[in-house]
C-alpha cells in the first residue's frame, strides 16, 4: 500500500470520530479493523488529530494485547491459555500448535478465555469461528483447511 493511501484511510476513520470525546480506543479499533493491524505511520496521524503525542498513542497501543503493530498472517489462530482449558490439555495443544505453525503463514496468538470452559481446550480462528474440544488431530485438520483457502 502506498503511504498516501494509508494516511487517507486513517484520516477518514479519524473524521468519523470527529466529535467523540476520548476517541483514541475507538479509533484504534477501527484502524485495526481496516488494516488488520495498526501501522506505525497511522500513529502520528492519530496523535496529531487527537492532540496527543505519538508516545501516548504508542502507550495505549502496546498496553492492549488486542492491538497488533505488525500485519498478521493470512489467518489468526487463537488458543485459549486460561485455567479451564489448561486443565483439559491446553498446554499440550499449545505446544503442538507452536510446532505446527512454526513455518506457517498463519499467526498464533494466546487468548485468555473464550467462554467455553466446559468444553475445552478451545480455539478461535479470525475472531469469528470458535472450535471446542480441540485435539492435536482436530487442530491439524482445521489448519489444513485454512492453508488450503486463499
Amino acid at each position: 500500500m502506498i503511504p498516501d493511501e494509508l494516511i487517507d484511510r486513517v484520516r477518514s476513520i479519524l473524521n468519523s470520530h470527529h466529535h467523540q470525546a476520548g476517541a483514541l480506543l475507538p479509533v484504534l479499533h477501527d484502524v485495526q479493523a481496516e488494516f488488520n493491524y495498526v501501522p506505525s505511520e497511522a500513529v502520528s496521524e492519530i496523535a496529531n488529530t487527537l492532540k496527543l503525542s505519538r508516545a501516548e498513542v504508542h502507550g495505549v497501543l502496546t498496553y492492549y494485547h488486542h492491538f497488533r503493530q505488525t500485519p498478521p498472517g493470512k489467518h489468526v489462530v487463537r488458543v485459549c491459555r486460561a485455567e479451564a482449558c489448561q486443565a483439559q490439555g491446553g498446554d499440550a495443544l499449545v505446544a503442538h500448535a507452536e510446532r505446527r505453525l512454526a513455518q506457517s503463514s498463519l499467526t498464533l496468538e494466546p487468548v485468555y478465555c473464550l467462554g467455553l470452559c466446559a468444553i475445552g481446550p478451545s480455539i478461535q480462528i479470525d475472531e469469528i469461528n470458535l472450535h471446542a474440544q480441540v485435539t492435536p488431530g482436530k487442530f491439524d485438520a482445521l489448519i489444513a483447511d485454512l492453508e488450503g483457502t486463499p
Partner: protein
Amino acid sequence: MLIGREVNFGTPVVSDARQISLEIDGKFVTVPLGTSIMRAGISAGVMIPKLCATDALKPFGSCRLCLVEIEGRRGFPASCTTPVESGMKVSTQTPKLAELRRSVMELYISDHPLDCLTCSANGNCELQSMAGVVGLREVRYGISGANHFAEATKDESNPYFTFDPAKCIVCNRCVRACEELQGSFALTIAGRGFESRVTPGQGQAFMESECLSCGACVNVCPTATLMEKTVIDQGQAEHAVATTCAYCGVGCGFKAEMKGNDVVRMIPWKDGKANEGHACVKGRFAWGYATHPDRVTKPMIRAKTTDQWREVSWGEALAYAASEFRRIQTKYGRDAIGALVSSRCTNEEGYLVQKLVRAVFGNNNVDTCARVCHSPTGYGLAQTLGTSAGTQTFKSIELADVIVVIGANPSEGHPVFGSRVKRRVREGAKLIVIDPRAIELVSSPHVNATHHLKLNPGTNVAVLTAFAHVIVEEGLLNEKFIAERCDTKAFEEWREFVARPANSPEALEAECGVPAADIRAAAMLYASGGNAAIYYGLGVTEHAQGSTAVIAIANLAMATGNLGKDGVGVNPLRGQNNVQGACDMGSFPHEFPGYRHVSEGASRTLFEEAWGVALQSEPGLRIPNMFDAALSGSFRGLYCQGEDPAQSDPNSLHVKAALAAMECVVVQDLFLNETAKFAHVFLPGASYLEKDGTFTNAERRISRVRKVMPPLSGKADWEITIDLASALGYSMRYAHPANIMDEIAALTPSFSGVNYDKLDEVGSLQWPCNSSTPNGTPIMHVDRFVRGLGRFMITQYVPTDEKVSRRFPLILTTGRVLSQYNVGTQTRRTHNIAFHAEDVLEIHPHDAECRGVRNGDQIRIQSRVGETVLRASLSERVSPGVVYTTFHHPGSNANVITTENSDWATNCPEYKVTAVEVARIEQGTLAS
C-alpha cells in the same frame, strides 16, 4: 551561596487558607487542607520512605513504599495520595509496615543490577537509600529470575544524557515530568505488567522522539537510568552554588553542581522563582561553551585589522586602547567614540560601561542591543503606562483565563515560560495566537489555540486596532477601570479613532489576511473571557510600527481593565538574560540608570556629584547612528562589550563597512566573534560562571549570578571596564560587584532597596524595590499607573515601506529555534548543534512548487539589499507568500538580506519583514 542537598517533600505544596491539624508518629502537625500525609510528615521531620513520589510532580501512588497506618482505618494507604484530615493519627513506622516495605523492596531489587559501587548514581541514588532505609538484607526471590538486565540496551543517542533501561524501576516519574512539567508528552510506559518499559516516542531512541532535551526526566529519575553524561564522566559533585542562567530573558535559577572549579551539572533550582525547578536544553545542558577551546583568554592587539593578532599583557592592551581612544578624541572630537553595552553581561557591568562613556569618554554615545529588539517596548509602555517593563510575574499566568501570544514563540525562545503557557492551557485557559506562522502552541499534544490569527507579516497594528474596534463596538469596555485609572480625554479620542469604519475588521481583513469573523471572535474572547494576559515578543517590536503595536497592546489591556492584578497584564518576553537590566542600567544614549532623561537637570546633577565630573545633557548616538557616523567620518572608535553587531544587526554589509571605517574597535568577548574581525583590541571576557553580579529578567526580577570558577582570562568583565577607565585616567573603586550595586541603589530610586545581602536572603527581587516596597513589586500598576493616569494613544496603521513586488514577491520573517541562542556564539559551541546543525528556509509547498524547489534543495534568497543561500524546508507552518528562517549560524547570513527599515520611534530594525525572492540553485553552480 552554597546549597546543601534539598529536602524533597514528596508531593507539591498546596496553598489553602484552611489549616488541618493531625498527629504523625506522635508529633502534632498543622498543614493546609489538601496536603498529603507524606508532605505533612516530611515537613515535620518525619521521613517517610518513597520512590515514585517527588514534590515536583503530582502524587501517583505506585511504588507502595510510602504506606502508613491510620488509626481507625483498615489497610495501609499510600501517604502520597492520601490527604490529611483533621484529628488523624498516622503511624509511619510499625513492624507490619517494615515487613511490607522490605518485601516491596525485595521485588524491586530482584530486577535491579547489583552494581552499586560502579554505578554513576552511587552516593545519590534514591533506590539505594531506600534499600538502606527499609533495612533490605536479602532478596528471597534471588536475582536470577526473569529480569530486564540482558535484553535492555543503553540509549546514548542524546548528547547530554543516557537512558539505561536495565536500571529502570518503572516509577513513572520521567513520564510524568515530561507531561506535567515540560508538556512534551514524549515518553510513555509501553506494554503492561512485567513487560512495562519506559519508552520515548513510538519505541524509539530519545533523539528520534519528540524529546526536547529539557532534562526534567533526568532530574526526577531516582536511579541511574536517566543520567547526565557529565556525571557518568566526572562522578557526583561535592558542592553546589545557586546562580542564574545566562541564556534567555526567563532568568531561570540553577544550582551549579561543582567539583572544585569544574561544573559537573546544572540543576534547575526549585527556589528559582522564574522557573520553579524547570529548565530547557540551553540552561540545563548547553554551558560547555564556557570552557570551549575557542575561548580567547589572553588580551590581544593589532594596529591594522589585516595584521595578525599579537598576545599582550592586560596592561599593554588597555593602555593601547586608552591611547587610541584619546588620540581619536583629540583628532576628531569628544563625540567620535562610544560603547555598546552587552545584554548578556551583568547589571553591574552594564552600569560601569555607561558610566565609562558618560564620565570618562565625556559623551552619551552608549547603546545596547535592546535597540534592535525591545526598544519599542521601552517606548510604548513608558508612554502609556509609565514604565518600560512587563507588568507581571511569570507565575501570574496560573490565574489567566485567556492567554494572548502575539509575535512570540515561547516554546522555542522562552521554553520554560512556554511550558507554563501549555500547562495553563491544559488546565482550561483559552489561547489566542497572533502570528504569521503556526508556532508549536497553535497545535501540540493537549494544547490547541482557540484562535490562530495567521496575519500577514507587518500588520500587527491593523489587527490590534481592529480588536479595539470590536471591543468598543460590542460594548466590552471596562468603563469603571477607564474612568478611575485612565486619562479620559485621551481615552475619548482613542475611542472615536478605533470606532471609525476604517478600523473595523471588515475594512482591514484584506490587508492583514485574517478573516474579519476570526478577529471579531478573538477580540470578544479577549475582552470577555475573564482574566486576559498578553505575552508578546520581537514579532511585535521588530517592525516599522513596533512602538505603535506595543502601544496598541497597552491600549487593549487598559480598555478591558486587564492590568494591575494577577492573571492579566502586558508582558514582553525579553530576549536575552539581562536585556531588561541593560535597559534599566542606563545603556541608552538618552537615559541615565532608572530611565531618567539626560536632559533632566536634577538627575544629571545627582550623577555629576556622585561621579565627580560634568555630564552632557544632549543624548548621544544610537547604534545605527554610530554606524552611519562611522561611514561619514565623524565616529572613529568603539568599545564593544559582549556584542556582535557584525552578525546580529540588520544590513550586515553596511555594518561591516562602518566597522571597517573605524580606527579603533575594542571587542570584549568570550570568542573571536564576527565583529572581532574588525577589531584592533581584543579583551577576553568572562562567562557567567566566572563572575559575581545580577541579571534582571523579563519579570523585572533581579537575581544573583555567582562565581563558581575563576575567570579564565584572570579578569571578570567588570574588572576590565574598571581597568580601562583607569587607563583613561579615571578611577573607579569597587572591591566587589556588591559595591557597584550599592552605588546603583544609591542613585536609582527603583533600585534603592536592592543589595546583595537582601538578595542572598530572599533569593531575588522584582523592581521597583525601595523603602515603600522593600520586598519588590511582583505586579505593577496595582492601584495606579506609574505615570499616574493610563494614557490611551492613537494607533494609526501604516503599511511598511518594505513591500512585495514582482521582483520580490515573498515576505521573509525570522525567528528562533529552541536549541540555539541568537547568533549562536555560545550554543554552536555545545552539543546543541546536534539539534540544529543549520538554519533552513521554511517555504510553503505551493510557493516551492511554483519555483521548482524541493525539500532540502539549496536555494538563493535575494532581497533589495543582499542575498544568501539556505536549504529549503517545505512547511505548511507558513502561509503561501511568507518564508521563514532563523539566524543562529553565521554562514546563513540572514542579516545580509534584512534592510535598514526601522521603528519610527526607536530605530528598532524591521527584521521581521523583508521582501525577497527565492530560486533553486542548480546542481554544481553553488560556489563553495
